[in-house]
């Protein structure tokens, strides 16, 4: 039976839908009375579960002047509550054979544990506890502030590419907080204190600002019952502010930046354009931009690498990138890493020339077919990792999308035409919205 179907499938390669169940069959959603969203993703292949709580609050929700506080607070949530001593949360997870961690982005902060499925209740009990009851010592937390400064040293200060990115982002956003790094500006991080952390905590950590995602060997009704028991009693925060950030004014001038550092071994030019993100019920433009990035730079056979790396041999690497998952306006980027002997000015001209040619000749239909088939196949491959599925739903639901939007997304991608892609390209490639950045070695500047 199964072999027959597989053979039949092979004959109609690109046209037929793949025969697997889709993710929609495995997802169940609820909302608790206190407003907490619940997403359950069933995967019964192994007796394990990932339990995540995502807050609709990230670094872009911080007040001015305390950059990094969202991430600092994320660290402090491991430092104890009225019932748990500092470090006891992770110790308990570990003593139950699990692992735990957390992460902070512009639009969300998330906490997760991976553990045997029968320990889910305990994870919820502890996670619900620290949603409201952290207990911190004003002096003790200064040690953790040192830790996040070392984290900044490791991720940013030691890496010129990261410093360059910070400068480009700051230039990209004239008014919106995406221009401030998630980890924070160092001069503000060194002054973060308990009051800053608690102010953010009290404002944003509540069930009506949270999404619970549970993926693994669980049944939706059991998860709902446990969620009601542990998260249900927490009162909603009636004073939760509406999520509106300072927005971008019309951008009227291209910004050009040049960053030099003696540690740069491989110079490159990168340009980002302000670009629309996926909006709930309105994802077509983002889908077209997603495909534009694939067509221009998503693989070896895409436009920029084919022309610049393979045909002309004027680049070591050329590409394009875009992610539509963002609460507010995001960016569409192109990059060119020139071959030896090609200057950055020439590399920029090369990149622009290839894109201009592309706007003339349009999308290669065979390439678009390959991309769309790969996207359909990814709906099969993605079922193999309940972890990454959990991440997808958590990130989407904290970035202004709904479960329906997530499920609609693959169909929208398939419906995008070459004309849609060119239209999106014409709109996004507006130099007034762009930041063009040169990353140089220090020597080049002195020449």
């Amino acid at each position, binding site marked *: 039976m199964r072999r027959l179907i597989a053979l039949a499938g092979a004959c109609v390669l690109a046209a037929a839908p793949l025969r697997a169940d889709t993710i929609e069959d495995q997802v169940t959603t609820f909302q608790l009375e206190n407003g907490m969203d619940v997403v359950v993703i069933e995967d019964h292949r192994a*007796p394990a579960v990932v339990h995540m709580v995502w807050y609709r609050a990230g670094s872009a929700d911080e007040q001015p002047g305390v950059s990094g506080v969202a991430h600092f607070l994320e660290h402090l949530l*491991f430092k104890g509550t009225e019932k748990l001593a500092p*470090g006891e949360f992770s110790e308990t997870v570990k003593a139950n054979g699990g692992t735990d961690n957390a992460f902070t982005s512009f639009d969300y902060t998330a906490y997760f544990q991976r553990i045997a499925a029968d320990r889910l209740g305990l994870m919820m*009990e502890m996670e619900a506890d620290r949603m409201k009851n952290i207990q911190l010592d004003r002096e003790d937390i200064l040690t953790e502030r040192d830790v996040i400064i070392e984290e900044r040293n490791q991720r940013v200060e030691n890496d010129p590419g990261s410093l360059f990115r910070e400068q480009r982002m700051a230039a990209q956003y004239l008014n919106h907080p995406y221009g401030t790094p998630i980890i924070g500006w160092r001069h503000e991080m060194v002054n973060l204190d308990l009051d800053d952390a608690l102010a953010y905590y009290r404002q944003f950590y509540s069930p009506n600002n949270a999404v619970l995602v549970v993926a693994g060997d669980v049944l939706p009704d059991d998860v709902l019952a446990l969620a009601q028991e542990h998260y249900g009693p927490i009162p909603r925060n009636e004073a939760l502010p509406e999520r509106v950030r300072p927005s971008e004014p019309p951008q009227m001038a291209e910004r050009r930046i040049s960053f030099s550092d003696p540690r740069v071994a491989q110079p490159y030019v990168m340009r980002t354009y302000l670009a629309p993100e996926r909006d709930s019920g309105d994802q077509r433009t983002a889908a077209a931009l997603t495909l534009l990035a694939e067509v221009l730079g998503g693989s070896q056979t895409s436009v920029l690498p084919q022309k610049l790396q393979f045909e002309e041999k004027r680049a070591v690497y050329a590409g394009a990138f875009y992610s539509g998952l963002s609460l507010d306006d995001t960016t569409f980027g192109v990059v060119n890493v020139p071959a030896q002997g090609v200057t950055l000015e020439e590399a920029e001209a090369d990149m622009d020339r290839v894109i201009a040619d592309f706007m003339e000749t349009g999308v290669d239909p065979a390439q678009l077919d390959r991309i769309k088939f790969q996207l359909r196949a990814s709906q*099969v491959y993605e079922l193999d990792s309940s972890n990454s599925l959990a991440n997808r739903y958590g990130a989407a639901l904290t970035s202004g999308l709904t479960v329906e939007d997530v499920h609609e997304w693959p169909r929208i991608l398939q419906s995008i035409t070459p004309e849609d892609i060119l239209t999106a390209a014409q709109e996004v490639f507006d130099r007034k919205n762009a930041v063009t950045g040169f990353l140089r070695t220090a020597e080049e500047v002195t020449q």
Partner: protein
Amino acid sequence: MKVFGSLIAFMLLVAAPLRAEIDIAEVTSPGGVTAWLVQEESIPFVALELRFKGGASLDLPGKRGATNLMVGLLEEGAGDLDSRAFSERAESLAASFDFDIGDDAVSISARFLVENQDEALALLRDAITQPRFDQDAIDRVKAQIVSVVRSDAQDPDNLVGVAFDTMVFGDHPYGSAIEGTEDSIAALTRDDLIEAHKGALARDRVYVGAAGDISAEELAVVLDKLLVDLPETGTLQAAAVDVSTEAGVTVVPFDVPQSVAIFGHEGIARDDPDFFPAFVLNEILGGGGFEARLMEEVREKRGLTYGVYSYLVPKDHASLYLGRVSSANDRIAEAIKVIRDEWSKMAETGVTEEELEVAKTYLTGAYPLRFDGNGPIANILVGMQMDDLPVDYVNTRNAKIEAITLDDIKRVAARVLKPEALHFVVVGQPEGLDS
């Protein structure tokens, strides 16, 4: 307020760890190739992991970087297809082939749909057995690798690794970067790549793991189709090398605000009877998680770093016990002192009963969580074979952990931890450290 009654109840229940519920079949093809398989039919794709023992340490004298360059070219044209046609074909099948290399192995990770499995495997077979090594592809990939080599030369994380390896291994292939140098890469010819291919991808050194929607019978056929055209034998494996270090610090000056350090000395072989106690010991000293002693002392108590870890590195021809830490230039000296103290303390007194119990519960409970998907399972299957473990290992592994006693740990701590040999290589502008 509700008390954590259920927490205590759960803590008492943890004695019965989760069993990894996977059923591994050993498959031997008509042509004599062996593979391990976990058949998992719920998702219509297959993860296939091939590993060839040897890797970059097979590079012949004067040809450093040849195996790495050869592996980089496997996806750059094969059989009738040039580079672009090969990529287009893989894309049109939505199959992915990753070719990777380490000191001791060439790894090929394939993922393909059941619905076009024959076409995908035919393409993979061509890549493995009939790479074209077209000159324009060689030149292009060489330029990419040179770009990586130059970037690595400015990256403190990479510099510190190479500096440590060079100190320990000298002229042995382990002692230099697998990419080679700009000069050694420039000198490599197409003939060198053909030699490297014959030497590294031979049937006497291949290990195979598969997981997903494929039967043992189908896999047996696949194995022969994929590998039958490869040579029976390849290049002789590299020689064993002794690891000898002395307590001390080597500073590699580099202008960064945060110093990056690797520390370590001789380790313990994977097939040593003391490997398991050493593994548990390391979990307590510097394994992942915030509770390890190094993390507790260096990060949690003093805020000197974002992360500090130690890990056993049992390579095929040498064994190391290593660790990593990074701290601001004016704080790294203190971090190093704390690490030294912890190293000595554990060598002398071992661990507590409680630490051992917590580590056992964690390691036995976390083990089944590793089997979370066809890709990871195929990887584990191939790793077990390369470590010469029996096919029922997944069912006996946790019992081996459970059986370890406090005395075992104490004995192994005294044997494995060598404060008198613990050497730090530091890249940065550290203050208060003398080389």
